[in-house]
């Protein structure tokens, strides 16, 4: 069993590819319900998972990339950021697996994609957004976004009645029956929690951009990237239930792990499963009852 597991985890491309194809097989969020995309994406995913070594065939990745590029072009203004990330990753895999050193090329691609995605995420939260670093975004989000219900109750102490009032007020504003509404539950504690959340997010995303984009010769910084990405995955998705994003990051993380470190791939896979568990079991909501 142990030897079998080590064999399964031996190759970064194998582990990453299986994680990505599993996502395409299981998540309608990624494929959408539009059969023109869902059908080919599911067929590709099934073929990759049941007919190894098809999962590392550049032609299959090219097919996946082609479908994803068309899908991305169609839904450019509405699709989620991690679907773009998966699209560019598929393009990168299709090219990397044709190269003379596929594992190294795939590793470099995945590392740069992760680093760049965090670089732009940090840019948006820092200099580009005028409402993030001052806590305004998180204050609004804790008060109105039901996905942050547990966090708002547990950490910011927002009363349940205030949240229910706010959900109704936000709905009223959305229906066009009011020009403005006043949200309930503002408090100094909420302000502090919003500021901490904002600065923590900006700090960890900036750090991730730095460690993933740092040259390989900066060894200590370069090696720290795994721990930081795993920490990000294990903490962020406890609060934000977008498991497909978290799983995608862990799959890319596995792709850029050093071939001689199968333990890292086990950790990326385990953290991916933990992120799924967060989604299936709303732990924070249970804690506040």
């Amino acid at each position: 069993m142990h030897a079998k597991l080590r064999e399964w985890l031996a190759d970064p491309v194998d582990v990453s590819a299986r994680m990505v194809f599993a996502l395409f097989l299981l998540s309608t969020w990624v494929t959408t319900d539009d059969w023109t995309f869902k059908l080919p994406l599911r067929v590709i995913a099934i073929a990759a998972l049941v007919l190894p070594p098809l999962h590392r065939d550049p032609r299959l990745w090219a097919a996946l990339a082609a479908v994803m590029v068309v899908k991305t072009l169609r839904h450019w203004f509405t699709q989620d950021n991690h679907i773009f990330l998966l699209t560019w990753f598929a393009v990168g895999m299709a090219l990397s697996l044709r190269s003379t050193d596929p594992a190294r090329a795939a590793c470099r691609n995945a590392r740069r994609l992760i680093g760049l995605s965090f670089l732009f995420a940090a840019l948006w939260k820092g200099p580009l957004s005028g409402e993030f670093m001052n806590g305004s975004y998180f204050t609004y989000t804790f008060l109105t976004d039901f996905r942050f219900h547990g966090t708002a109750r547990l950490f910011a102490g927002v009363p349940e009645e205030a949240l229910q009032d706010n959900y109704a007020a936000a709905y009223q504003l959305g229906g066009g029956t009011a020009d403005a509404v006043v949200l309930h539950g503002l408090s100094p504690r909420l302000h502090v929690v919003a500021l901490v959340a904002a600065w923590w997010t900006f700090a960890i995303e900036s750090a991730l951009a730095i460690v993933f984009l740092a040259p390989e010769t900066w060894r200590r910084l370069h090696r720290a990237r795994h721990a930081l990405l795993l920490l990000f995955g294990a903490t962020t998705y406890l609060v934000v239930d977008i498991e497909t994003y978290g799983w995608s990051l862990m799959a890319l993380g596995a792709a850029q792990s050093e071939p001689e470190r199968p333990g890292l791939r086990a950790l990326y896979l385990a953290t991916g499963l933990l992120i799924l568990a967060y989604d299936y079991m709303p732990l924070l909501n249970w804690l506040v009852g």
Partner: protein
Amino acid sequence: MAPALLVATALAQIVLTRAGPLTPWRGGGFGLFSSVDKLENRILLAWIETPEGDVPLRLGESKHDEQNALAFPIDRHVRRVAERYAATLESGTGVRVEVWKRTFDPSTGESRRVLVARGTVPRAR
């Protein structure tokens, strides 16, 4: 090539949010969780214009065109939604479609809707 695609997309997204009405959350620029102005917070409203006054139009299920108009309400996207509704109109002179975004003032707790785009299309005859 893949990293170059990501960078090109993200830079284009920054331009479209700065110079245009694209929500920071979409367009592949990784601006999610950075702004109150997310797609789901935008508001699409429509009215049938009549000589007696405007009548609110009940919108159906949000489809691709509506989502595009919400996320990136340029004239073409807003008019496309208005044209679709205008084509099915049995009375009135035309259809007006508006896209609004929300703002938030953390000092008072006030959340307000602000007009982003408006498009009017005459009834198809």
